């Protein structure tokens, strides 16, 4: 499930829905992104999130489908807000449900890394020094690159893409 909306969301209710009537779910992983109150040494009064509506939903659906293909997920949710948000407000929720906790963790982090580098949203910060568009961070691209598939080498997609030891738990 994906949603792109101005309104806030209820994290507890959204996570409950992921496992409701799905008795095979053993673990949920969730990430909630929040507006921070500082940008360097400047206090942030608000941010504005602009997006590209006709591309956003399509892009989020693609990434959710890719996560579902790569990990054994029972359910997932991605909610991303746009518009004006103040410090402490929720920006994004990613939730994943699986029989296996490591699949839930990996898929959740994969979706978040992907959102940070591919989802067509742009943040503008308002501080007492004026407004500025937030620059993309090279570290976000590096984080996404961790997930590059190594199918050509015959490795499984999930644990190996992470570089974790082969003995790691499911």
């Amino acid at each position, binding site marked *: 499930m994906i949603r792109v909306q101005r309104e806030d969301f209820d994290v507890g209710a959204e996570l409950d829905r992921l496992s409701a009537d799905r008795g095979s779910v053993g673990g949920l992983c969730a990430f909630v992104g929040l507006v921070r109150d500082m940008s360097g040494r400047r206090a942030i009064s608000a941010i504005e999130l602009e997006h590209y509506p006709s591309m956003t939903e399509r892009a989020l659906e693609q990434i959710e489908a890719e996560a579902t293909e790569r990990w054994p997920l029972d359910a997932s949710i991605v909610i991303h807000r746009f518009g004006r948000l103040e410090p402490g407000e929720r920006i994004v929720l990613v939730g994943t449900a699986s029989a296996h906790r490591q699949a839930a963790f990996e898929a959740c982090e994969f979706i978040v890394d992907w959102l940070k580098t591919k989802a*067509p949203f742009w943040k503008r910060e308002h501080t007492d020094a004026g407004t500025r568009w937030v620059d993309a961070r090279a570290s976000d691209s590096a984080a996404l690159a961790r997930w590059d598939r190594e199918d050509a080498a015959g490795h499984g997609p999930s644990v190996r893409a992470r570089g974790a030891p082969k003995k790691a738990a499911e």
Partner: protein
Amino acid sequence: MKIVYFAWLREKTGVSEETVSLPDSVNDVRGLIEWLGAKDPGYADAFDDLAVVRVAVNQEYANLDAQLGPGDEVAFFPPVTGG
């Protein structure tokens, strides 16, 4: 063809959305950028450093060599900063 601009590309071009008729000589993204830059200094400024410009054609990421046709929607925007 429809072109849309986001974030500081929207601000530099002064346009959020426009419909243009391409000359026959323009058939890919690179050509479109050159043609737009020649029209107006605001566009030339927006496209000054292509390393920080991302392109989508029909809502999918594309590169400078992507072919364009009259019914396409092209989007120009900076590297994304959501999440």
